């Protein structure tokens, strides 16, 4: 196995973590929106920002796999 494949596996693992994180954010945001439809806009924008933070972690891994 060359270095590239290992890096790809690493990026995949990071993607799992980020996927779980973003899924949780999205799910909870949906729940919150259903509970308080009048807060829809605020919840959506903060969910997007939080998803961006979580996503950054996976993207760091992708970049590291580009670095190989």
């Amino acid at each position, binding site marked *: 196995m060359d270095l590239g494949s290992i890096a790809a596996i690493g990026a995949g693992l990071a993607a799992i973590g980020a996927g779980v994180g973003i899924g949780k954010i999205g799910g909870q945001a949906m729940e919150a929106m259903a509970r308080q439809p009048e807060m829809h*806009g605020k919840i959506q*924008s903060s969910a*997007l*920002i939080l998803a*961006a*933070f979580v*996503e*950054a972690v996976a*993207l*760091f891994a*992708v*970049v590291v796999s580009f670095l190989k």
Partner: protein
Amino acid sequence: MFVFSENVCRFAQILNKAFFRESMGVKALKIKLLAVVMLCSFSGFGSEDSTDKKQEEFNPKEMIMHHVKDAYGFHLWDWNGHSIALPLPILLWVDGEMITFMSSEFHHDSNGEVIVERNGHRFVNFHEKVYQLDSEATALAFNEDNYPINASKPLDISITKNVFMMWVSVLVLLFLFITTARKYKQSPDNVPTGIAGFMEPLILFVRDEIGVPMIGEHKYKRYMPYLLTIFFFIWINNIFGLIPIVNGANLSGNIAFTFTLATFTFIITTFSGNKNYWKHIFWMPGVPVPMKIFLAPIEVIGMLVKPISLMIRLFANITAGHIIILALMSLIFVFKTIAVAPVSVLFALFIAVIEIIVTAIQAYIFTVLSALYFGMATEEEHH
């Protein structure tokens, strides 16, 4: 080859199932798709035999990288084996003098074979990077990692494909917003008409959803020009990256571009930081002294990680989108059959639609996080 194609087809089947599980009405479409998937697994067989001929092997990685990276000329399409390309100027700073020539002098070569001589210096284009050959070398030589050993990179400020597209986007932006501003001047009661009616909600979105809530009622005005400019600059370049005919000038998926914009955000954050901001970095209030000492380096790293994550987020999102679309398209060439094209095109279309949303979301995220950092830097003490 066969195993690979089989795997891909199984993946496609699973996806297919997942997509159509809910709706029974699209059964016919499902069967058609399955047929296509079956076909592609057979044609995987077929192509195995035909590769005996010593034709140029299709390398998806190379193709994708070529499309994602910057280039000297604006390659439009191939015609009878010739590339039709818009030549762009190459500007090199060598030994205190500027050397300029058009990219067409390389004759579309990017393997370091065509040598251009100017002012006694010889240049080659290797993988869309200009190398300056050492004085006694006559051809590019490589080490075992396929890396040039007898050449060096000069300071290169060429007008590349990305710079060209950036200027096009700047012209579009200037046209759009100066026209919008003129519309307001024309109407006596500042009523938005024509294009201004379309642009005003976007501008107000940046002001009311990004500027005011992130920075605060009193200070947002100073940052509005920057936020608006960066939002529309990123957005329009994201969109330009998706237009196929301009060959996906992947400007906002280029790390140099995102690096520069993130640096601007970092500089503005640092210079607008007030006493409270620096206190929270170097001497965190409300925690015991050993903790303060422990937290200071972490906060300093955090200060730097913020713009770095901005840079990487935009770069990786846009590049990943391009890579996925190109990878789906290269499936057609990997399998060497037109039968896989519907699947590829369908998925590429699906991803492309998502990418259109991503163009706006990433511009929003970059702007909103920049605004958030400015807001943190200018926040007053409240405890």
